[in-house]
């Protein structure tokens, strides 16, 4: 039994124990405060203009999306109650929920959806601007119907999966006619959700209280949610251990502490409830560099790095080697394949020799500059591991350490790197933020897009076709072909496949009960006394 199975088993045991307790009739407790640790502050608390887990973890309790995922990971109604697409895929009609009111008492209507989609998602929301680029109009034949009209076919499953994150609705009456970026509601959100924003103390906490007029009857159970900003990871663990906070989502604690808390009976450490946000450790190649323009060199580098060893020894077994840019949790698209480049130093050496880069003085073939993009604490570790692994096949690596803003500018704007390593985050559908890593034509400077000087007509065509293909089966087939193509060419190598971890006190109940729980509304969550 390896660590991962063990974790799954512990998770399953905890689940059945929880279920059993529920069966013995432990009633839901109303009231109470749920405190959440966050390791950074957001500039904006408005998910209609900022797509990021750091924003959702707070605002998804206050504002609501048109749809969300259910326990099985399928889109389920929230503010939209049903949807229907026209056969040509250019019109999608949403029926909206009746009797929903904004926290300031005004009714929620299709006008809010129309305004948010056209003025916020299409103009300001990161990833939303791409998703909605072909959105021409939103018609509102009545207050509870919103008709999205696109100039090119929009696959319904793509739209729905994307809208879980990119479909938060903002109140039109608050934003209309103001400077959207300067609107005070960006830091004091007004929504339709189960909790009402009450207070934001900069550098300390955000607080939201129970919404007594919430449209789900008898919900929520909690009286209050408090998000505390604790930047230092050791201090954050201390806060969890002393009960100052009850949960910490999205790897906000140190991996070592998460590993330690796993065996602490007071806490559950698991990726359950965060599965919707998979991510990869990446290795990006600047193919403008002569050596790296040769696919054999890129493949050799992939063969030279022992990813399973890294996972087991550096990140506490939290992950597995990736099989491509689509993670296994994305069942609608995952082509069941093997990791394309097994660790094989001999093959790496052979490929490098074949490419014509013989070992020169000191056994060195050539030198590369590696820029780590510090998404998480594992990135510098992986950078060092890459450096040491490549040394053994005769490639000297110099690591250039920069903070995140510096690394992003250096890699994606200045192209001043040979190889780079960071994270790729998958957002439910390859078309949302994954294919841009491979599609050519991204303007210079766009972070986490193809800025490697690499281009393939075949890959570009597959990306474009799949983004407008309406038939789910054919879409899946197109993405399988695409995965195969980019695995062969590897302009970017997806090294690991991982999910985030949460550490949660066992006092928290009905927690992590669906794959987007960390970014969910928590209307059914409660805490033991």
């Amino acid at each position, binding site marked *: 039994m390896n660590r991962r199975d063990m974790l799954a088993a512990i998770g399953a045991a905890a689940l059945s124990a929880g279920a059993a307790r529920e069966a013995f009739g432990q009633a839901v407790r109303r009231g109470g*405060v749920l*405190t959440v640790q966050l390791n*950074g*502050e*957001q*500039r904006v608390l408005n998910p209609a203009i*900022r*797509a*990021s887990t*750091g*924003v959702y973890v707070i605002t998804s309790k206050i504002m609501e999306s048109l749809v969300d995922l259910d326990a099985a990971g399928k889109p389920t109604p929230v503010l939209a109650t049903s949807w229907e697409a026209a056969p040509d895929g250019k019109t999608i009609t949403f029926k909206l929920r009746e009797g929903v009111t904004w926290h300031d008492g005004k009714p929620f209507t299709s006008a809010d959806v129309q305004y948010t989609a056209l003025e916020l998602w299409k103009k*300001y929301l*990161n*990833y939303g*601007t*791409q998703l909605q680029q072909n959105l021409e109009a939103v018609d509102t034949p009545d207050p509870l119907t919103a008709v999205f009209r696109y100039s090119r076919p929009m696959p319904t499953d793509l739209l729905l999966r994307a809208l879980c994150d990119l479909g938060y609705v903002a109140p039109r009456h608050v934003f209309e006619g103001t400077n959207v*970026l*300067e609107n005070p509601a*960006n*830091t004091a959100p007004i929504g339709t959700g189960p909790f009402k924003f009450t207070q934001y103390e*900069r*550098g*300390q*906490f955000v*607080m939201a209280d129970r919404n007594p007029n919430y449209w789900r009857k008898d919900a929520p159970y909690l009286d*209050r949610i*408090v998000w*505390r*900003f*604790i*930047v*230092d990871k*050791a*201090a954050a663990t*201390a*806060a969890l*251990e*002393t009960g*100052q906070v009850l949960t910490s989502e999205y790897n906000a604690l140190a991996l070592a502490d998460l590993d330690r808390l796993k065996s602490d009976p007071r806490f559950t450490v698991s990726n359950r409830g965060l599965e919707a946000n998979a991510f990869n450790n990446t290795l990006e190649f600047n193919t403008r560099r002569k050596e790296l323009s040769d696919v054999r060199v890129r493949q050799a580098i992939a063969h030279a790095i022992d990813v399973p060893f890294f996972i087991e020894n550096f990140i506490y077994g939290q992950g597995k080697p990736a099989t491509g840019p689509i993670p296994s949790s994305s069942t609608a698209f995952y082509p069941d394949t093997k990791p394309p480049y097994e660790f094989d130093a001999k093959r790496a050496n052979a490929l490098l020799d074949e490419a014509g880069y013989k070992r020169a003085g000191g056994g060195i073939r050539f030198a590369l500059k590696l820029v780590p993009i510090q998404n998480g604490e594992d990135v510098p570790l992986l950078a060092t591991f890459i450096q040491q692994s490549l040394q053994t096949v005769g490639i000297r690596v110099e690591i250039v350490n*920069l*903070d*995140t*803003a*510096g*690394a*992003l*500018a*250096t890699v994606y*704007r*200045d192209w001043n790197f040979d190889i780079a390593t960071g994270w790729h*985050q998958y957002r439910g559908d390859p078309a949302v*933020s994954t294919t841009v890593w491979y599609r050519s034509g*991204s*303007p*210079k*400077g*766009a*972070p*986490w*897009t193809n800025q490697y000087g690499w281009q393939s007509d075949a890959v570009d065509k597959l990306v474009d076709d799949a983004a407008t293909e309406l038939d789910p089966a054919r879409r899946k087939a197109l993405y399988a072909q695409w995965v195969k193509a980019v695995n062969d060419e590897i302009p970017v190598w997806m090294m690991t496949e991982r999910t985030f971890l949460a550490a949660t006190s066992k006092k928290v109940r009905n927690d992590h009960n669906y794959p987007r729980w960390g970014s969910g509304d928590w209307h059914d969550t409660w805490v033991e006394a």
Partner: protein
Amino acid sequence: MTILLLALRRLAASLPTLLMILVGLFLLLQLAPGDTVDALMAQMGGGDPATAEELRRYYGLDLPAAAQLGRYVLRLAQLDLGMSAIYGKPVADVIAERLPVTLLLMGSSLTLAFVGGMSLGVLAARTVGRWPDTILSTLGLVFYATPSFWFGLMGIVVFAITLGWLPAGGFEEIGTGAGGLERALDIARHLVLPTMTLALIFLATYLRVMRTAMLEVLNLDFVRTARAKGVGETAVTIRHALRNALLPMVTILGLQAGTMLGGSVVVESVFALPGLGRLAYESVVQRDLNTLLGIVFVSAILVIAINFVVDLLYGWLDPRIVADR
């Protein structure tokens, strides 16, 4: 009146320095790769270039650096510190929110370090070469050599996690609605560990300086005279020696007040306190130029003010200094 004049003269003399610091910092940050929009993109996990362009315009980053600097200095002349990119409100407000926390932490730790270091230093000097001196000097060295974050974390582990006596972090209990004395006590409880952590290291410095100064003064002629007059040992120490030995201490106090403003980043992070140090760190990471320059401005003024007070203290402790001026 003379004091006021002196203060004004001091301020006028510091203005060029202040301006140089601000311009230097501005230019230094231009050299750092990436701007606040890059930092924002990193935080939100990416976005398209149109959004980035829009945001650069919004933050005024589309102008050339010289124009940005000119605009900043012009605004500063009107005492306007600009808008904070991270918090989306005036820098003055952001700093005003954080300043009390830093001042409270700094004031209490400095007081503790000064008083503790002074008394222990005197004790060590009085018992020089004997066991209390040896123990105090060794402890002082240990405190001085230990990094503050380690102290802080160990304090949390022992007093918050194991014993459960003190809170692990934060400035106060959230959402209690308490006011007045109850709130003050709550804040005091939260500040015990950070104050101790910050004070211990400075205490070690004061202890050593005080011990040396006392030893030196105790050997001077006037002390021998006092003793010869038949003044008791306690009176000699306190009335004659201490006052003279305090001068180097006050000098260090003035110097350290500046370091403490910046040096509390670590302590503020470990104890999750919303102070200026953390704000400054966050501003660098997020490339929030306005906030960072604002903090530097406020810190510089604080340091100037503290050193002014220190100068006044010199005169009070040793009237000869005033006579010379």
